[in-house]
């Protein structure tokens, strides 16, 4: 018997609490697999957000810290400065990272902090009941944009990867999606790359992952994958927005 696919030991055995079809689970698995494949699980410290992934400390099979809402990059900075030879990552939603935690992520990038951020963009605040996020699309209905997001009152979707790519200390910035097997495979490659950048001490790395929230989008899970593909990707194009300087020079 050959095992083509099995549960990674990077995850604990605890079942996820996420809603049916929520792709947070896929992203968890990818990160855990990468940590195992790079053989760094035992020297990794992860930092959880406040958001649906608030219980991530129950799932990642490594030391974990629960941070205050939006402050994971600051917490990770504290850890990394004390333990520069450990692998430190944050896992954050778009409310956590792109709203309340804007200053912390911008400055972790500006400092070239040698941490990796997994940024889950699902265009909504999941945990608190589907309010508008900075990444909510124009026209999208949420509990706080009941008539659809209008730029006039509620502003425009924030493109985090593009914004952070302008920052010198950010060594690697990319956007992926987990809406299809192909994209999942690519997402894993990119997440691995981000951790490799950290291991090579090249600076800050961030992967923005487009993810679904079937519950708050008011769709069934397969519909949500389609919505991601059709509505989100055009606004949030996939790709690498910044690669380490060396690689750029060789390119």
């Amino acid at each position, binding site marked *: 018997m050959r095992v083509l696919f099995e549960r990674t030991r990077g995850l604990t055995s605890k079942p996820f609490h996420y809603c049916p079809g929520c792709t*947070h689970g*896929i992203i968890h698995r990818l990160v855990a697999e990468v940590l195992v494949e790079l053989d760094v699980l035992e020297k990794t410290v992860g930092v959880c957000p406040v958001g649906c992934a608030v219980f991530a400390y129950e799932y990642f099979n490594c030391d974990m810290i629960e941070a205050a809402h939006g402050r994971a990059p600051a917490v990770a900075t504290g850890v990394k400065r004390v333990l520069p030879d450990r692998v430190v990552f944050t896992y954050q939603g778009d409310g956590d990272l792109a709203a309340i935690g804007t200053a912390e992520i911008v400055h972790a990038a500006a400092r070239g902090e040698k941490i990796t951020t997994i940024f889950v963009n699902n265009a909504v605040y999941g945990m608190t009941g589907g309010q508008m996020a900075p990444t909510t699309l124009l026209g999208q209905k949420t509990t706080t944009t009941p008539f659809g997001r209008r730029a006039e009152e509620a502003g425009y979707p924030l493109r985090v990867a593009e914004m952070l790519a302008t920052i010198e200390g950010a060594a690697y910035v990319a956007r992926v999606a987990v809406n*299809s097997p192909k994209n999942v495979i690519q997402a894993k490659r990119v997440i691995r790359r981000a951790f490799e950048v950290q291991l090579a001490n090249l600076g800050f790395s961030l992967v923005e992952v487009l993810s679904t929230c079937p519950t708050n989008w008011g769709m*069934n*899970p397969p519909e949500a994958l389609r919505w991601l593909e059709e509505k989100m990707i055009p606004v949030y194009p996939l790709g690498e927005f910044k690669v380490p300087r060396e690689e750029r020079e060789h390119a």
Partner: protein
Amino acid sequence: MVFDRERCKGCELCVTVCPRKILTLSPDLNSLGFHPAMITDASRCTGCCFCALMCPDVVITVLREEGEDAARADEG
């Protein structure tokens, strides 16, 4: 293929992405109250692992008899 029935939330993502359309939800409920996914015709599985890649709850283990790969390859 092995499904960890009790973890499955019946989201149907595996069902949707299976290129062979050999996955479906079973009619009975698991203890969480979901209809778990199951395979209808294991012999047609190519081992592409799409289902496992998309399963948000890491429910699926994909196994394969040695030598099976070659046998299936010409099927599709």
